[in-house]
């Protein structure tokens, strides 16, 4: 089982990445799980240029880190996006990655070509992990619609997206003092792997 995880925060080892590391360490303890974690700070993913060339070319005209990530995204059984909320939205670094998924959107909805091979369709799972400094309940609302698109265009169905979003954590390390975040993250990691195992054995 392949897990591909993006850490979208510009701050290494911060709250959203810690949440991700908890999920990944729980997953790593399960048998047969191969994990790859990509910090976006090192991934060299530029924003989408909005040129719409992918609607005819079926590929992106930009040559950057996405060249390497493209096949990994298709091959993974579980894709995780972890990103903090900045100014009531997902941080710009993660938004750039999300927008670069336009090539998958074009493939799926414009060119009507498969994104994953038919036998893997409906088997993939997605996880969105997020943290926010504000403790408002609605602080994640601006991020979720973009995250849904991110997963839908790579053939992760809406009902197959799992969310763990923790508000009220701002300064680096604040999540360590959160009463349930670690436990929730580890449980989520185990549950997703169990679900994936069930699906792949079918």
């Amino acid at each position, binding site marked *: 089982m392949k897990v591909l995880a993006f850490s979208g*925060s*510009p*701050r290494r080892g*911060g709250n959203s990445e810690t949440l991700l590391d908890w999920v990944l360490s729980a997953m790593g303890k399960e048998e047969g799980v191969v994990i790859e974690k990509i910090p976006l700070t090192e991934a060299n993913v530029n*924003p*989408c*240029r*909005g*040129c719409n060339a992918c609607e005819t070319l079926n590929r992106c005209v930009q040559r950057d880190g996405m060249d390497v990530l493209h096949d990994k995204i298709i091959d993974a059984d579980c894709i995780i996006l972890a990103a*903090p909320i*900045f*100014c*009531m*939205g*997902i*941080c*710009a*670094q993660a*938004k*750039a990655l*999300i*927008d670069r*998924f*336009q090539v998958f*959107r074009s493939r799926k909805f414009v060119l009507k070509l498969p994104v994953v091979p038919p036998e893997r369709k409906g088997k993939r799972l997605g996880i969105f992990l997020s943290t926010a400094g504000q403790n408002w309940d*609605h602080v994640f*609302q*601006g*991020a*979720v*619609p*973009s995250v*849904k*698109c*991110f997963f839908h265009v790579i053939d992760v169905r809406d009902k197959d997206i799992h969310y763990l979003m923790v508000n009220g954590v*701002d*300064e*680096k390390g604040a999540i360590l003092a959160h009463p349930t975040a670690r436990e929730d993250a580890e449980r989520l990691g185990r549950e997703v792997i169990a679900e994936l195992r069930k699906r792949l054995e079918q």
Partner: protein
Amino acid sequence: MTVKVLGLSGSPHRHGNTETLLDAFLDGAGEAGGETEKVILKDLSYTPCRGCNACHKDGVCVVTDDAITLIDRIFTVDCLAVSSPIYTMGITAELKGLIDRAQYIWARKFILKNLFFTNEHIANHKGIFISTAGLSWDNVFDAAFPAVTAFFNTLGFEYYDNIIANDMDRYKGIRGHPSALNNAREKGRKVIRVLESSRDATDYQ
């Protein structure tokens, strides 16, 4: 004094639907006597916020680039028109990158508490969000509003109005839309009149 209007174009490509809608708004503002200027974000050189929170200590961003110069400039205008197309249900990474960089202003207001905008100041500074989207969904702009709201609030601008047009794919672009460009031009004229009269009222008091 002339009302100053600054338009930010957050699209990665030039003269597309969103920038054309912004141009119509700026034309209207110019016709009504406003002094207008347009900044193309993609031509500037700035990095997204690093989330280092250093500004929480002194209210200064440790990164000195075009984002800081631009935010300085925003503080000299009366009307700020922020424009971005909708990509993947949100604003572009370019505009989000700029919005996130205003964190040091937020820190001055809410952590250091050495910056404060009076209600009069806010009423005399109008923020307008301009956007287009390919999809026809009514909710296609909803996820963009919170970040734009945060940006205007942080910078002391009243979030005054939206100039938004969806369903661009069906209209084959903004020029095919029956009313959007005229509407934007009219809103440009109107905001100048509103700002002039609200400033007169402030002066009178």
